[in-house]
């Protein structure tokens, strides 16, 4: 587990999300729009994983076993 905070991951995920939304909005191609959807889904997955790491750190902070 890293000693980074939660915020950099969330900011990076929001950047990926915004890139996906702009890609969906500006591409004139079905496959380009599909790529934008892929970016949005990856941003959501990155959020999930970052928050899951936060939960484990929280339980380790409270003195419980980390797994």
């Amino acid at each position: 587990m890293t000693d980074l905070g939660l915020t950099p991951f969330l900011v990076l995920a929001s950047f990926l999300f915004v890139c996906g939304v702009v890609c969906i909005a500006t591409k004139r191609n079905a496959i380009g729009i599909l790529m934008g959807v892929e970016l949005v889904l990856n941003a959501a997955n990155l959020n999930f994983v970052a928050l899951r790491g936060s939960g484990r750190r929280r339980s380790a902070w409270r003195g419980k076993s980390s797994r």
Partner: protein
Amino acid sequence: MTLSHALFAILASVTAISALGVVLSGSIVRAAVWLLFTLLGVSMLYFLLGAEFLGAAQLIVYVGGTLVLVIFGIMLTAQGPFSSLKTRPMEWVVGGALGAVLFALLVNAVRPIPDLQPGGAGTLPGTGPLGMGFLGIANNGAVAYLLPFEIVSVHLLVVLIGAAYLARAKRHQRTEGEA
């Protein structure tokens, strides 16, 4: 500036620059190659976060499967003028402005989320209680979500069959009209 900070800086810059490349590249094939580097960066970030299985699954499913599917789609549909349709400058301006506003909003929403909460809500439930609650076998009278889930899946199946039927009927009609 520890090792994880440096690794995160490298991986985040690679991922962000590749995502910008996906958005800004005009050619659809170049966008696919930029998307490859974005997916690789996200999988490395999973490894950095300690989710090794998810990183490997990302490598296998996205980089190995979905991206190859996208490239096949490009190769099958890249005939005619659709492969290089230009976006107008006004659309770039409007889309970029909306994206910047959305990014500022999201960063403002994300920043006050606390990292470590010493006395926060209890530990997260594992997958076992979640699955049991989903099936309705939970001990504390939880709502069973299995019936709505099945109803939704039957709905989706009906929609799928209906869409296939409609597409087939239209093609049949056209062949009849040509004959």
